[in-house]
């Protein structure tokens, strides 16, 4: 049997997932149904694993499915489900349209790949997510879309909107321009450039050397029930399979396929003129794939030690956070504010891989990738940026889309009582006190009336007064405060989120007589 259809299935499934991912990250009107975000992101290996570790439920067990799939058929994940893998296939496809690429067997860079995998695992065990943030393929893809493609898409959308506005057509809505975050932008550009170069020159080299997920699944595929193997009787040594193998894993000289590097693209199955290469029972005795020796083990230990040392020296930087510096009355916040549902700074920074899905999905754009607000290791993890916007009182989108459990799902009613931080008033900055004029912008925006305008007899004006117990730390007051350069009200983050008290309701009991005459 010549299973041509396998390649067709792969192309169909991968493009479906790829399109869904792109829609998810480029969605401009929050119009992509939850269904897509739920199912598409569900199977992403590292996010799902992390969510499983946080939430502990099988509802977050996409990675178990992936492991199961790998133990059956090898690294199907890498060609079907991984958006970064599919992105490379798209590059390769485009390149093949102009000039046909011919691949040849490559030796494995096993030291590098197992080194990186071990490093990431050890760094994670030592309590830092940074190793995953810097290597997870899904998070790379998310950042590329959010920081490179999305700004371009928004720009094009708005260009269309404003040209239509000139002829008084207002049917298409504009999107608030994306705030360019230079650090994630440059990082994503670098990753994109690397992937572009690697994929065009050496196929799936990235997946087989730098990607820890690829390496881990490659390791697992050593135990797969079904493996792609040469069929000694049928193979005519025409090298057709080797020429189309993006992974460079078809060793015709030794008649072995390095299945740990096979990304299950099935190009070989299609290219083979006979039945010389096919899925076969995996435990049949052939030359086994060797994956480790003493030299490698030493190397792994050294790499691990290096990562360990760097992590412990950097971890200290993760605590101190200062937003502004100034000579007059600067706003100094000690704790950066994490999104609602993230439970605590610790949970959030240990689970977030900085994939930017919440950044892309946040309707008010209050979620922005951090620079150094979370310390060096928290770079690119999203934080609440109250200078730019504030958290919508009724919104739980970030908690619904987060694939890693860094932000746990919240019901809107629960979310309304999560206190991310507490509003603090700086009297010496406030115009009511400095200029003796009315303002009230903070109280105006407060959804719980934790900030209200109360008559101050001393200055005979209504001035802001804060009831911290009912404050949810949404940042509306801080955002709305008009004073420059330092705000007069700001939110001090809670390192561990707590429950706010419910706002008191006082029912207006005024009697209305609709037949009564007007009071003028």
């Amino acid at each position, binding site marked *: 049997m010549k299973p041509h259809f396998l390649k067709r299935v792969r192309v169909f499934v991968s493009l479906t997932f790829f399109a869904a991912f792109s829609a998810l990250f480029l969605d401009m009107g929050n119009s992509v149904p939850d269904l897509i975000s739920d199912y598409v992101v569900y199977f992403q290996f590292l996010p799902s694993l992390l969510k499983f570790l946080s939430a502990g439920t099988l509802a977050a067990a996409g990675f178990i499915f992936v492991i199961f799939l790998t133990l059956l058929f090898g690294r199907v994940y890498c060609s079907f489900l991984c958006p970064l893998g599919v992105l490379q296939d798209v590059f390769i496809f485009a390149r093949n349209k102009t000039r046909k690429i011919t691949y040849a067997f490559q030796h494995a860079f096993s030291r590098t790949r197992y080194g990186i995998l071990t490093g990431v695992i050890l760094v994670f065990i030592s309590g830092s997510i940074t190793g995953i943030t810097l290597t997870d393929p899904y998070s790379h893809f998310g950042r590329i879309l959010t920081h490179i493609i999305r700004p371009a898409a928004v720009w094009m959308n708005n260009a269309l909107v404003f040209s239509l506005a000139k002829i008084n057509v207002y049917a298409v809505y504009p999107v608030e321009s994306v705030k360019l975050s230079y650090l994630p932008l440059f990082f994503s550009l670098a990753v994109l450039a690397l992937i572009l170069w690697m994929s065009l020159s050496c196929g799936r080299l990235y997946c087989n050397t730098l990607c820890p997920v690829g390496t881990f699944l490659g390791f697992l595929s050593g135990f797969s029930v079904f493996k792609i193997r040469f069929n000694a009787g049928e193979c005519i040594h025409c090298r057709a399979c080797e020429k189309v193998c993006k992974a460079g894993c078809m060793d015709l000289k030794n008649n072995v396929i390095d299945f740990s590097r096979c990304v299950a693209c099935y190009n070989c199955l299609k290219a083979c003129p006979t039945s010389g290469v096919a899925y076969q029972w995996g435990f049949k005795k052939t030359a086994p794939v060797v994956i480790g020796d003493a030299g490698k083990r030493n190397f792994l230990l050294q790499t691990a030690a290096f990562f360990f040392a760097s992590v412990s020296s950097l971890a200290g930087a993760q605590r101190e956070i200062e937003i502004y510096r100034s000579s007059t009355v600067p706003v100094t916040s000690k704790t950066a504010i994490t999104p609602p549902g993230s439970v605590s700074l610790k949970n959030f920074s240990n689970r977030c891989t900085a994939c930017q899905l919440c950044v892309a999905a946040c309707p008010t754009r209050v979620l922005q990738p951090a620079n150094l607000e979370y310390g060096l290791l928290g770079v690119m993890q999203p934080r609440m940026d109250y200078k730019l916007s504030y958290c919508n*009182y009724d919104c739980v989108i970030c908690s619904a889309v987060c694939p890693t459990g860094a932000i746990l799902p919240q019901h809107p009613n629960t979310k309304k009582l999560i206190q991310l931080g507490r509003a603090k008033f700086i009297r010496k900055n406030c115009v009511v006190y400095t200029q003796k004029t009315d303002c009230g912008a903070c109280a105006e925006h407060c959804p719980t009336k934790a900030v209200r305008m109360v008559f101050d007899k001393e200055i005979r004006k209504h001035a802001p007064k804060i009831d911290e117990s009912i404050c949810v730390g949404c940042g509306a007051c801080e955002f709305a405060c*008009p004073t420059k350069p330092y705000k007069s009200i700001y939110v001090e983050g809670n390192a561990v989120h707590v429950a706010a008290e419910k706002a008191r309701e006082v029912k*207006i009991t005024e009697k209305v007589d609709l037949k009564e005459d007007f009071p*003028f």
Partner: protein
Amino acid sequence: MLIRHSNLKPCGAAMKRRTFLEKSLKIGLGAGAYLAFGNRLTTYAGDAAAKKAPFDLVAVKGGEPDIMFNRAIQSLGGIKNFVKPNQTVVVKPNIGWDVPPEIAGNTHPGLVEHIVKQCLDAGAKDVYVFDHTCDKWSSCYMNSGIEKAVKDAGGKIVPGNMEKYYQEVDVPGGKILTHAKVHELILESDVFINVPVLKNHGGARLTIAMKNLMGVVWDRRFWHRNDLHQCIADFATFRKPDLNVIDAYHVMKQNGPRGVSAADVVTLKSQILSTDMVAADAAAARLFGMDPAEVPYIGMADQLKVGTMDLSRLNIDRIVL
């Protein structure tokens, strides 16, 4: 005087009103253009159309928003007194907050829908509705019910969330606020109908007609920094709406302007119509149960001669349905 304004529309929406007026003259469009120019200037300066109306202010209570509007507008000479065939109309409700209609943080969607329909029935070419919202604009438009109301009525709901829609203008009558960036629809539309909701307000004490105009400018923080009340009064001198319709059906008595729950609201089932924003605000303040003198911007606008807060000098039609 029936003029085809469509011939004169600037080709680029970005064109300023003044630039447009100058250009119209320079191009020399002839007598027709001259008439159009005259008409525009009077619209700009005040309310020529409504001058013949027998009443300065109409207060109505006891009905649904559309019934009250129909009754009240009759006393001002009917909607045709304000909207001429083929004119463009901009309706500016309060859509500031992402709250449902029962919280009364925004103008009643039924009233907005009805006014848009009335304008279209009167022959308006296009009826635009927008607000520069405080909360996330798309959520405000949707959850206030106003986006759907406008679309159902055949009007056009326009975003107000991007600085690009706003043009720099001078406010010659302002004491502190001498220039502002104003939404292009306010500058370009032939007819401007202001449809605020009457509410309690932490900083401004009350938000009614003049305060509602804060939603047609881009930079509101300047107002808050530089004497909010004076800025509200200053901007009221810029372009007076051709008609103000104050929605006092559901009235937020406390926790304004956003409100916390429906417990903050009383149902007054009232409406106030006037071409004079100051008079309308003064009457609405009384309806709310406050002395207009307690709301500083009303007195300041009276001093700037935007209108009069002395209700005893006005011819008021009081209708109890």
